[in-house]
């Protein structure tokens, strides 16, 4: 039998960036908050011996245990989905801090275009520019409305970067295409290392607008807006998939969670795996959550006045489906909302250059990068192009670690003496650039529950149905050759470029943990799961921040926008706990 617990004001399902931000904001406002996290705790000290490529990068120490829960996957509705049995394309994390512990730290704002993508695309190119099966939607919020929340996130996390647009004034440095920001980044950008300088020079020569990418690896020490002190990045080259022993990669465990805990109103419960939101459909409310203590097997019911669903994208959607909240999406009719507009990231346009010079590539940081945005969003004319949006183009110096970094040209064998000779020769002299392509929503890319496979408790796994579309292939064919040109301009003696996207989406090679959508935001309840406060249309006391709310995925890393939406949701929850009603009227 489930054990009934005393009611609290707020429960967060998951304790990563979104759960941490909601937890801090609500506990500071005086509400009793319980954070339920299925994994355990990690601390900065745990990472003193973190420089273990095998353990963290290849045995996935900080990632979810797939034997207990995974997803199933298929490319199209005619296939049978099969379980993701081992890690590949993306790596959902687990534990307190979530992916905020093992992320790279690339922290972007989406473009103003993104939030009104349907309206602005129709306005500029006409309604016919959007293919019939592309379910492009406005977000129900504008960039200008979200700007203060971006600002709050950046000053909390200590983002290092260079403003390109201050209050509408384009700056000399920075990204000239970004939306207007009220003030500069809290910290100056990361160091422009020789490889990055090469990219900056080459793109500048070609007429582009290079800038240093925004980073949650802190360029300097920083005392944040909550009085938390963070370290300065040491460029050790062990960032993505690792934790930071310097406390120099902003994360929930360094920032929002200690602040929440200091209020005395916040309780963190680890090894607490939420299996269901308790839903009163008639009242359009959730009454609380049901969770399993993974250490004892005891099931608990935790009533709450308001619930924040703050797990990873995939689990947010799955828990909605398992709890019967909202109408599941139907890919045949396009009706229904939960599971709709699943999107991803398209990294297929890339160029690798083999140089005569050597660089110190074993040094680096997760968000040490130089970028151009000239091929992102609607920053370039799509009138004569057969795709929409684009992608940020970057050279990232994240640290070349030795197991996975064995660069050889395409004509080289993959093993044996020649492979050894050439990979050793190229080891310190190979640079790659890539476009981080936006992925736009299509009718038959979606999430639902699998009919066959189950998790450790016997509950259905989430089923992902996803494939590349002509949109994605055309994007790669357009941007790929530009990357090739940039790499030549950088002075590579040999350039190999990926200028086409062949075949179906493949879950085997790692690509990106930028899964988005499935519980999207919008202004129309028949088209979205949550409103602009991330408040669920079908359960007024349920808020669902996170990348699950993205109606499409932009050409950037998602975390900056995730953080902004979490602050927005936290504000909405406070208003809701006062007024007890829907915060936004549907249109």
């Amino acid at each position, binding site marked *: 039998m489930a054990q009934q617990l005393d009611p609290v004001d707020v429960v967060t399902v998951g304790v990563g960036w979104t759960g941490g931000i909601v937890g801090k904001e609500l506990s500071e406002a005086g509400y009793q908050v319980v954070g339920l996290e299925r994994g355990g705790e990690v601390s900065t000290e745990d990472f003193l011996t973190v420089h273990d490529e095998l353990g963290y990068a*290849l045995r996935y120490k900080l990632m979810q245990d797939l034997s207990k829960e995974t997803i199933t996957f298929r*490319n199209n509705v005619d296939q049978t989905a099969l379980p993701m049995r081992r890690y590949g394309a993306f790596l959902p994390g687990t534990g307190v801090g979530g992916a905020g512990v093992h992320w790279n730290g690339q922290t972007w704002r989406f473009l103003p275009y993104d939030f009104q993508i349907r309206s602005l695309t129709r306005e500029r190119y006409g309604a016919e520019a959007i293919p019939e099966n592309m379910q492009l939607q406005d977000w129900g919020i504008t960039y200008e409305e979200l700007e203060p929340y971006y600002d709050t996130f950046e000053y909390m996390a200590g983002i290092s970067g260079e403003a390109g647009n201050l209050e509408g004034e384009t700056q000399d440095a920075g990204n000239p295409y970004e939306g207007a920001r009220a003030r500069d980044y809290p910290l100056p950008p990361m160091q422009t290392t020789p490889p990055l300088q090469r990219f900056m020079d080459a793109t500048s020569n070609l007429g582009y607008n290079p800038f240093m990418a925004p980073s949650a690896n802190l360029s300097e020490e920083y005392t944040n807006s909550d009085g938390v002190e963070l370290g*300065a990045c*040491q460029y050790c080259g062990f960032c993505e998939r690792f934790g930071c022993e310097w406390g120099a990669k902003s994360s929930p465990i360094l920032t929002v969670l200690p602040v929440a805990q200091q209020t005395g109103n916040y309780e963190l419960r680890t090894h607490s795996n939420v299996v269901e939101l308790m839903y009163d459909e008639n009242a359009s409310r959730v009454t609380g959550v049901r969770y399993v203590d993974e250490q004892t097997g005891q099931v608990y019911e935790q009533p709450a006045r308001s619930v924040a669903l703050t797990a990873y994208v995939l689990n947010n959607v799955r828990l909605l489906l398992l709890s019967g909240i909202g109408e599941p999406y139907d890919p045949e009719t396009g009706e229904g909302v939960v599971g709709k507009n699943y999107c991803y990231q398209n990294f297929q346009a890339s160029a690798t250059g083999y140089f005569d010079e050597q660089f110190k590539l074993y040094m680096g940081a997760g968000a040490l990068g130089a970028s151009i945005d000239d091929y992102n969003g609607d920053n370039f004319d799509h009138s004569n192009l057969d795709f929409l949006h684009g992608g940020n183009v970057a050279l990232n110096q994240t640290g070349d*670690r030795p197991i996975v970094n064995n660069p050889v040209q395409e004509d080289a064998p993959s093993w044996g003496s020649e492979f050894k000779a050439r990979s050793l020769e190229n080891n310190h002299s190979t640079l790659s650039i890539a476009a981080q392509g936006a992925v736009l929503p299509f009718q038959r890319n979606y999430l639902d529950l699998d009919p066959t496979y189950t998790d450790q408790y016997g509950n259905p796994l989430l089923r992902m149905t996803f494939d590349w579309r002509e949109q994605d292939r055309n994007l790669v064919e357009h941007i790929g050759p530009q990357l090739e040109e940039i790499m030549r301009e950088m002075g590579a003696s040999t350039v190999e470029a990926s200028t086409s996207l062949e075949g179906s989406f493949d879950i085997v090679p790692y690509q990106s943990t930028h899964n988005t959508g499935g519980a999207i935001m919008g202004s129309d309840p028949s088209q979205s799961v949550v409103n602009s406060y991330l408040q669920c249309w079908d359960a007024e006391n349920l808020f669902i921040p996170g990348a699950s709310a993205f109606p499409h995925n932009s050409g950037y890393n998602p975390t900056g926008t995730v953080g902004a939406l979490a602050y927005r949701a936290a504000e909405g929850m406070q208003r809701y706990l006062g007024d007890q009603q829907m915060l936004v009227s549907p249109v």
Partner: protein
Amino acid sequence: MPDQDKPIDFTRRDAMKVGGGVVAGGLAIDPEGWFTDDFDVDQMQEVELEPEGLQYFTIEQAELVHAMTARIYPSDENGPGAPEAGVVYFIDRQLNDAWGRGDRWYMQGPFAGVDPTAPFAGDAEPAEPDVEISFANQEPSATQGWQYPMSPAEAYDYSLDYVEEYCQNEFGSSFVDLDPGQQDAVLEALESGEVDTFRGITPDAFFLLLRQNTLEGMFADPMYGGNREMVGWRLKNFPGTPGALGSYRQIIDEEGYSAPDEFRSIADDVDQVADLGPSGSVDPAGGNVSDGGNASGGNASGSGDNATGGDATASGSGDGGGGNASDGNTSDGGGSDGNVAGDDGSSGGANSAGHSH
């Protein structure tokens, strides 16, 4: 005395210049463990295989894996390879560990392409016809990844038998007794999926596993049993770990490539951390909500012989007062480029930061 205006580099190279105690990241270290300049990779010997030294493999399996990995990452004119790095021992230990057992892989059935009734098909009493696995006869798409009904350890068990069966069929000999050209031909056949003795797993899938494990055994930290004497890192001029609180902050902007002065493994970092003592708390930034003290990252306080009196807490006690890591440098603006070091001068200089006491 170090130059007060120069950002303090607490990478190992500069740390080593300090007389007496060596300080890396502010922690007192015995340098003996990581001075390895006199190491000669050419003197490395191939590992010997002893049955009693194996955790998972039989001696026959180990000899086969040893021979195969020796062709994947060979010893040659470019230096030692898998035989000297002890790749076979790395794989042996991995297969006996959680990874080899597939402990964190999703291994529940049904497995596509595997009809559970099939093994009984030839029996007098066939299995219940109404056992319905709707997709048992459907081949999984390659884009769906590993769908073999076996863990990595099982994949090795089965595949090594298949390889030997193939070598007997083709050459009338064990793989280990083939000449290098023949061995390469077998590996090429595996890689291209053309070894017809495989069942349940494809030859190319096994080859990918073996190749990946070979590279892991060459370049993973030596604590996993391969990469002996850090030979893989020496081949690559990869320094290993930058230290438990290591930094490249002061040198990452330099042009060109500089080979490391020495190589360093996690065992060295563990020794370094152990020097903190049982009460040593390391909290470089640690989510200290600003109650004074120090701060952040760079501050691994206390250099060897002073100040913190052996309390090598990396963050200082955070109990107010005292300099903190940031006040040593933020005042001079861009000049020092925000380096973490706020040198206290008196301590011998190579500590990374100002003191918190």
